[in-house]
């Protein structure tokens, strides 16, 4: 990567997004910079546009106004260069492909040859601890395993940027906490930049270097909380006083905007454009 340490990986300036259908302002005047190696969580109630923001970074949704640059180039160019990997809430695995072939999908798109693919897939299987399952089909795996395949797929081509849209939202708490730990160790091994959308305050605090709190209608940045918990973080991190202080701080910020966290329901209009 030719990006120097001082240049931001993602730079968002004056971003506004309105959806013509329903005349909804999903995002308004967003300014944000993400530095290399950061782990940034976007948190906020339903309809605050956090998923839309993630999709604008990935050039899956076009902004109405403002600019987004990724690795110093326009988002569209960055997508064409395959600069980022993405993980959705549902694993979005292809039923007709085995685990190995699902992980290899982006590599096929990049035109890697068979041997090189095989080698990388094996590395990824080790990374997400799914050795022995390469010939299984997605429906033979549990939800947590499916999501690990999805993460392996996103990381397979070593993108400098990883976009994650509530990747553990559909999992039970125990699986979620274990995958949190796995994700942190993977992130530390690879040193990539992560944008992580979540509903869970404790998850955001536990994982991130910074937590971006958003408020809804229209979607704005309500405040940014730097998380100064030391890495590596582990099970005991969740029991530290500082952890609770930071959780409270994020919660207060969310509450001060006069909005309560809604249940898991999403505004389909905002979260699923097209």
């Amino acid at each position: 990567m030719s990006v120097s340490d001082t240049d931001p990986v993602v730079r968002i300036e004056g971003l506004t997004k309105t959806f013509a259908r329903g005349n909804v302002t999903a995002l308004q005047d967003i300014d944000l910079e993400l530095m290399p190696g950061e782990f940034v969580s976007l948190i906020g109630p339903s309809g605050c546009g956090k998923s839309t923001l993630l999709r604008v970074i990935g050039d899956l949704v076009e902004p109405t106004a403002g600019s987004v640059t990724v690795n110093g180039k326009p988002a569209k160019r960055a997508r064409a260069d395959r600069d980022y990997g993405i993980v959705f809430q549902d694993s979005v695995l292809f039923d007709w492909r085995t685990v190995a072939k699902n992980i290899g999908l982006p590599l096929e798109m990049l035109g890697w040859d068979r041997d090189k693919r095989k080698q990388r897939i094996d590395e990824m299987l080790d990374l997400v601890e799914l050795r022995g399952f390469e010939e299984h089909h997605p429906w033979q795996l549990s939800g947590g395993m499916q999501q690990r395949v999805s993460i392996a797929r996103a990381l397979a081509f070593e993108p400098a940027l990883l976009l994650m849209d509530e990747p553990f939202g559909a999992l039970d708490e125990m699986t979620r906490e274990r995958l949190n730990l796995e994700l942190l160790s993977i992130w530390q091994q690879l040193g990539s930049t992560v944008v992580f959308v979540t509903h869970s305050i404790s998850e955001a605090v536990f994982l991130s270097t910074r937590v971006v709190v958003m408020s809804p209608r229209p979607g704005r940045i309500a405040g940014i909380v730097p998380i100064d918990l030391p890495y590596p973080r582990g099970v005991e991190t969740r029991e530290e006083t500082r952890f609770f202080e930071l959780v409270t701080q994020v919660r207060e910020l969310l509450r001060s905007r006069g909005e309560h966290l809604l249940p898991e329901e999403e505004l389909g209009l905002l979260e699923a454009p097209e």
Partner: protein
Amino acid sequence: MSGLIVTPSVGRRAARRAGDWVPAAVVFVLAIVVWEGAISAFHIQQFLLPRPSDIVSTFWTNRHTLWPAGWTTFKEALGGFAFGSLGGVLVATVVGRFRVVGNALMPIAIAANAVPIIAFAPIANAWFNPLSSTSKMAIAGVLCFLPVMVNTMRGLQSADPRQIELMRSYAASELEIWRRVRVPTALPYLFTALKVASVLAMIGAIVAEYFGGAFNALGVLIRSDAQILDFQTAWAGILVASLLGLALYGAVVLAERLVVRWTPATREA
């Protein structure tokens, strides 16, 4: 680990699969016994419903006429099946690329599907040489075309939008999205339609023959046997038609098993 997978040994799986067919075999034997018995018990006239044993023996004595006739009809059905299905897939592929055209065409296709197309068999016979196999192939082909086209189009359009979004995150071209997402999604739909079409093709060929065809065709043979009240031979002809229809259907099911290995149907097996 939450995802414990039980993979039964190959031998056990084969045994279980064979076990699945035991009830069907029992029903088959029982049906034959009841059929034979009922004819003796209730003195059902032979010309209406012959014994299964008589049908089989009639088939055997007439095998030199029945089998070639069946083959003639089968070739017509196969030709119609191939052309009709291929046409259906092609039209769906081309039209499915343009959503607007597809949406406009769908109601027309559905309406056309509600038309008793078999009624057009005599016209097909008038268009082509009635003694040739072309007219039968044409009817079988049109019968196959519609369900295959409608289902393929539906399948191509029912791709998961999130999978398409993922492909777009890889900057995939439309062609790549089509190849890697749309086609695999459409395959189960296609095979559902092909199974329907395989049955329709055989029926279409036989009905078309009813309105006139070369004498060595199954439809003509069954009709003339029924007209002279030789029901035993007519039933033997029906047996041949069913066996050939089942063979075509079975071939499609087999192809589905080989190609579509990931759907619930194959999951159960």
